[in-house]
C-alpha cells in the first residue's frame, strides 16, 4: 500500500508498504528517519516515542496505515536547525546520555511533559517518564536533565 503522512512538517510518501508494517518501520526503513529506536518493538520501552498529531505514542504500536494523512513529529524534528531544543541541550549537559538508545524516546516524552507542565515536580517527572526504559543511567541524570530544561524554558 501507499502511505501519505506529514513528518516533521514535510509531506512524505512511502510506497510498497506491507500492511503489517509499523509506523516505526516506515520511519526507520522507508523514510530515512532512524532516530526513533527499536529497542523492544512491543510498546514496553518507549524508545520509539514520537508525536502523532501532537500526542506521544510508541511508533512500534501504530500500524503504518493508521498514519495516513496525519502528522508525525519525531526526535529528528525537535531541533531548530543547528540549535538544539532545550530538552536536547539539557540531556547532553546533565550527563543523561550514555549509550543513548533510550534518549530519542525520552527526549520526546520530556518535551511533551514540559509543554503540558512547565515546572513539574519530581513525582510528576517520574510518572511522565515511567514508560521509557533506560539501562545505563539509573535515571538520576535524566531527572537532572528534565529539571534543567524546565528551568530554561
Amino acid at each position, binding site marked *: 500500500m501507499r502511505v501519505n503522512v506529514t513528518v516533521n512538517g514535510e509531506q512524505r510518501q512511502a510506497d510498497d508498504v506491507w500492511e503489517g508494517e509499523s509506523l516505526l518501520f516506515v520511519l526507520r526503513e522507508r523514510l530515512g528517519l532512524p532516530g526513533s529506536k527499536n*529497542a523492544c518493538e512491543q510498546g514496553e520501552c518507549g524508545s520509539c516515542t514520537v508525536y502523532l498529531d501532537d500526542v506521544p505514542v510508541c511508533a512500534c504500536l501504530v500500524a503504518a496505515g493508521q498514519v495516513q494523512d496525519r502528522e508525525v513529529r519525531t526526535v529528528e524534528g525537535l531541533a531548530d536547525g543547528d540549535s538544539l531544543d532545550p530538552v*536536547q541541550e539539557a540531556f547532553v549537559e546533565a550527563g543523561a546520555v550514555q549509550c*543513548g538508545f533510550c534518549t530519542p524516546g525520552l527526549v520526546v516524552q520530556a518535551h511533551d511533559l514540559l509543554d503540558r507542565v512547565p515546572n513539574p515536580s519530581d513525582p510528576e517527572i517520574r510518572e511522565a517518564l515511567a514508560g521509557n526504559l533506560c539501562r545505563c543511567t539509573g535515571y538520576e541524570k535524566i531527572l537532572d536533565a528534565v529539571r534543567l530544561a524546565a528551568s530554561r524554558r
Partner: protein
Amino acid sequence: MTLTPAELTSAVSGGIGTSPQRPDGNLKVRGEFAYASDLWHEDMIWGATLRSPHPYARITSVDITEALKVPGVYAVLTHSDVPGRNLYGLEHKDQPVLAVDVVRYQGEPIALVGADHPETAQRAMKKIVVTYDVLEPVVDMETAADDTPLHPGGNLVRHVPIRRGSQDVEAEVVVTGRYEVGMQDQAFLGPESGLAVPATDGSVDLYIATQWLHVDRDQIAAALGLPQEQVRLTLSGVGGAFGGREDLSMQVHACLLALHTGKPVKMVYNREESFYGHVHRHPAVLYYEHGADHTGKLVYVRTRMYLDGGAYASSTPAVVANAATLGVGPYEVDNVTIDAYGLYTNNPPCGAMRGFGAVQAGFAYESQMDKLAEALGMSPVDVRVRNAMTEGSVMPTGQVVDSAAPVAQLLKLVQDKPLPAGTSSDIRELPGGVSNTTHGEGVVRGVGFAVGIKNICFSEGYDDYSTARVRVSMVNGELAAAVHTAACEVGQGLVTIMQQIVRTELGIERVTVLPMDTTIGNGGSTSASRQTYVTGGAVKAACALVLARLDGRTDIGDEIIDETTEWRHRATEALDPETGQGNAHVQYGFAAHRAVVDVDVDLGLVRVVSLDCAQDVGRALNPQAVVGQIQGGSAQGLGLAVMEEIQTSGGKVRNPSFTDYLIPTVLDMPPMSIDVLELADPHAPYGIRGVGEPPTISSTPAIVAAIRAATGLALTRVPVRPEHLTGT
C-alpha cells in the same frame, strides 16, 4: 603504597578531571547517531535466524526446499554452508555457528534466511522443516557434573579450588547458609544488529555493535575460512552492552549470507530474539560457612559454589575464577576453603555480565556477614569494619592488595549519610505507587548495608593490552589531534575520556576521535572495567611519543606527527590449580551501599526509598561520567535484588520480553547520593581505578539486607519476589 593524586592541570579546557560534553552527545539527542540497527545500504537484504524450540534434541533432518521457493528469498543456509570452522567461543571453541546434529539450548541457531523484507524472511523460516529427536535436558547445576555429558569432556567446565591457612580450624560463632542467584539479563536496549557488506574479492566488511572488535574478527574469519585481513570490522553505534556483547551473536551469520548472496545483509534481532541471542549472568547456588570469634573477627570462610554456564562455555572459566578469588569479599580471613564450579547444562548459555562472578559471590558473602552480625549481636556495619580489608591485606589467593582498599571508610561514608524522611503519605512514593494498593498500612521500613570487591582488567596471566594511535597536524593555523583505537565505545564514555587525555597530555583542545575499527591493532575488550585503564594508558603513551616529536613547537607546518603504540598493565599470574594461590589480579575496586526500603508486607511489594553509594575510583578523570557509572551500576543491582530474572522451566525461557522480564523504570529507582573517593593507585595511569562494575556488586545485597531488616525474613534468593515476602 597510596599516593595522593598529583595535580594534573590541562593547558586547555576539557582535560582530565573535568566533565566536558560527550563528542557523540549532540548526535544522540538529535536522533542522528548511527546505531548498528540504523544502518542501510543500497540493495541490501535482510537476514533472519531459525532457532531451536527445544533445550536439548538430536536433529534428524533439515529440509529447506520449500523455504527456497518463497518469492523474495535469496538464500537459506545451514551448517553445511559454513566454509571454515563451525565452532567458536571466547575460551573454548565449543559453540556451533549453526547446529549440526544436536541442539543444546532453546534458541540455538540452525538455519539462516536472506530475503528482501524481514517479513519474507519470517515466512520462509516457517517453511524450513526440522525434525528432532527430543532429549531430556540437563537443568540442575548442582547435579550436572554427574548427569548426561553434553560435551565430549563432560559437564564440568571448570573447578577453581582455593586453599589458604588451616582447613579444619574451629570458631566460637558459626553461621551457614545456602543462597541462590537467578539468571539476570544485560537487557541492553540496542538489540543485536549489524550490516555485512561483501566485496568483489571475496572479503567482507562488517559494521557491528560489539565489545571487542578483534576477537570478533578472529572468530568470524575462522568460521568463514578467510584470512583475518579479509574480514574488516568497524564499530557502529552500540546501544549498551554490560557484557552481553562479548560473545558473537549475528556476526558470522550476516557475513555468511552476504558472501553467499553477494548482497549487503542487515540483521536486527527483536527483543524476544535478543533474549535468545546473547549470554546471561550465571545463575548460582552458593553454600557458605563463616566462623568468627566472639569479637566478630572472622576465623574462617568455607564455601562451595555452583555457577550454571548453560549450553556453551562462553566466559564461564573466568567467571568461576572471579567468584572463587573474590569469594570471601573485601575482608581479611586467614583460613579459607573455596570450591567454585562452572557447569554445562541445557539452560541458556551464560557468560559475561557487569560484575562477572563477583555479583553472585557478593550476594552470598554479604548475606552471611549480616547473619554473623545477628549471631554476635553486632551491627552490620561494625562486623564488616571489624574484618575490613585495608591496603596490605592478603587475598585468599595470597595476593597482597598493594593500593588503597578503603573498605571501612566507604562503609562509614554511607552510614553517615542523612537518612531519608519517614514513610511518605504520597501514594506515588509508597510500595505499589499509583496502583493505589496502600496508604501506608502494612508498610514497614528497613535499612541495609553492603560492600563489595571487584577485580579490574583481565586476570590470570592474560596478555591484556591496548593499541592507540595519535596523529597531530595543523588545522586552520592551530595544532589539532586525532585519536584512533579499536577499543569499543558502548555508551560508557570512552570517547570523551580519550579526548580528555589527549587534551591534558598535548595541550591541544581540538581532538577528534576516529571511528573504531580493525585497521589498527587490538584495543582489548570493553569489559572488566578496563578501558579507561588500558586504552587510556595506551592513549597517554602515544601522546608521550607525539610530545617528544612536537618538541615544544606550536606550529609544525605541513608535518604530520603520527604515532601508534601498545600499552600493557602489569603482568598477572595463573592460579595454582591445586591451591588457587597466585597474583592473579591487576587491581581491586571497592564500593559500599546503604539501602533504605519500604515493604508492603501484605502484598509483598518493595519500594527502594534511597540507595546511596560510596566508591573509590582512584582518580575521577570525568566526574560526571563516574557518577553516571555508579548510578547505572547501582540500578542494575536493584534490578537483580527485586525484579530481574530470566525464568526457565525445563531449560525453556518463560519470559523473553520486556513485558515479562522487568528492568527498573524511573518509578522503581530512588534518589542515589554518591560519594566518590579518589585514592590514587600508583600502578595505574593517572591513579585511576576501574569504576563500572563495583557498584553492581554491593547494590543487590544492601537492598536485600534492608528488606530483611524490615520484614525479619531470611531471604536467601534473589530476585526477591512478592511471594517470598508474603509466604503465599
